[in-house]
């Protein structure tokens, strides 16, 4: 059965930076039926353009490892709530952090696309493919949460 709504999943992260690659691994682990409900796009770093390119009416999921969350903890937030959590000015905006990218996209689109952020608390972000124990043990849960969110949004 065709989904009620298009869903685009923006997979963020770098597989060579430890836990930063968690969303990539979660996307790879999605079952075929769930994958068929969404367009999976690997974006590396989340850029404003990725969110501006989301067509009207398409729901979006931003999947990424997150800091400020206990390692291994899986979180799901509506995009509006991510924007509300913006803190002080960022330490860097050669690449804006995801919350600011989402906020800027919202300003430029005249509103945020319908969708959510699905993240996992990261601990080890050094070079190498090795995950922290906390993320390793929570990866299946992260994948399941991502799959649930795809199904929920696809159902309209």
């Amino acid at each position, binding site marked *: 059965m065709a989904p009620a709504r298009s869903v685009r999943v923006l997979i963020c992260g770098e597989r*060579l930076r430890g836990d930063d690659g968690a969303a990539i691994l979660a996307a790879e682990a999605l079952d075929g039926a769930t994958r068929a409900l969404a367009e999976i796009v690997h974006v*590396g*770093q989340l850029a*404003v*353009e990725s969110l*501006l390119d989301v067509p009207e009416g398409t729901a979006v999921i931003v999947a990424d490892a997150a800091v400020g969350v206990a390692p291994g903890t899986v979180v799901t937030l509506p995009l509006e709530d991510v924007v509300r959590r913006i803190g*002080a*000015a*960022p*330490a*860097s*905006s*050669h*690449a*804006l952090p995801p919350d*600011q990218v989402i*906020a*800027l996209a919202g*300003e*430029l689109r005249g509103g945020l696309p319908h969708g959510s952020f699905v993240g996992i608390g990261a601990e080890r972000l050094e070079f190498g493919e090795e995950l922290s124990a906390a993320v390793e043990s929570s990866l299946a849960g992260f994948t399941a949460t991502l799959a649930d969110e795809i199904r929920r949004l696809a159902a309209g």
Partner: protein
Amino acid sequence: MAKAEVATGEHNFEVVGIARVEGEGTLRLRITAGEVREARLSIFEAPRYFEKLVVGRTPNEVVDIVARICGICPVAYQMGASMAFEHLFEVEIDPQVRALRKLFYWGEWIESHALHVYMLHAPDFLGYESAIAMARDHKPVVEQALRLKRTGNEIMKLIGGRAIHPVSMRVGGFSKTPPRAQVEALHEPLTEALALSQATLKLVATFKAPEFERDPLYVAIKHPIEYGLNEGRIVSSDGIDVPLWGWREAFHEEQHEGTNALHARTTDGRTYMLGPSARVTLNSDQLHPLAQAALQASGLAPQIARNPYWAIAARSVELIHASASALDIVDSYQEPARPFTPWTPRGGETGWGTEAPRGICWHHYDVDENGRVAAAQIIAPTGQNQGMIERDLAEFAPQVLSLPHAEATVRLEQLIRSYDPCISCATHFLNLEIDRD
């Protein structure tokens, strides 16, 4: 986050976590009786050990590894490493590959300069704390920036395989070169980018910059007939003139307490300035004719030469230059007969510098008889500019002491942002040794 202490005539500025610069840095100013006693831009981003990571690696592995030093200027690192090895191995580069490399680099310049001019620096001039706040009132301006940035990314993706940390660059050329039709498809976005760049300079020319003039030592790459990019010689405004592999003949690195980035000085100990203002000042006669015309029409050349805040105008001029030069290459491109020139490794010592968006990025490698790296030194632009940033801060700070603290802080941060420091790039060195008495 900023805090100030005023006690017994001593006035300390401490800006913890400078916004809108890449990486983690802190500004500390100690002022006593109106006199700046200390100006220090401390970089506390962790050292990243790239110079050690490349030891034992083959030249093509090095080209891949150094791209990871920076997500905003990976081409600069790949270009410097490739050309250093090509210099040692005496590799002749196909003229079309040479042109394609320039196009690749102009793509990075367009992306980096558009990001800095609009997202990092323009909010200072327009009175906003961030690009998000600016977007509420100046949506078309931010959209203009994103279109420019997208064109830069498209170029990098086409030639490099991907926009961030590209993968196709290798010693002798590229692993793959795009067919003519794909390159020609860049004509339309680059035509738009050129028009947007020209509009950018006109917009920037309406900005008001703080009054601040000084006469720095400028250093840039100079080419006999082109705007210095990845060939030519390293020159200065006072007569330094050394080959691209000879940076050590005129400059050196030194450690400073309280920062994880090495500073660079001339061999006689002077600070110097790299980047768009240095290049435009030293090489304005070699800018693309469209960029030269725009610079002249703006009347900003004298301000660019003397006031660091006007680096935003120099970057805008270079946006025109990069867009116009890229368009010329696109319009005359012929796919090379082969993507790279084969080469045979040999042992020896080599170096090369190229103009990253922020200034000269210099590489030096000792290569063993098996063609593997035995030692490396990579000098990022930010480490070279750091001494000049601190000098400017010390000279400018007395002008803002009478302002409310928050406003003074913004002016000082804006001055740092004029250099577009990339702190992540500056902290990849190998050793940190501090001698204490």
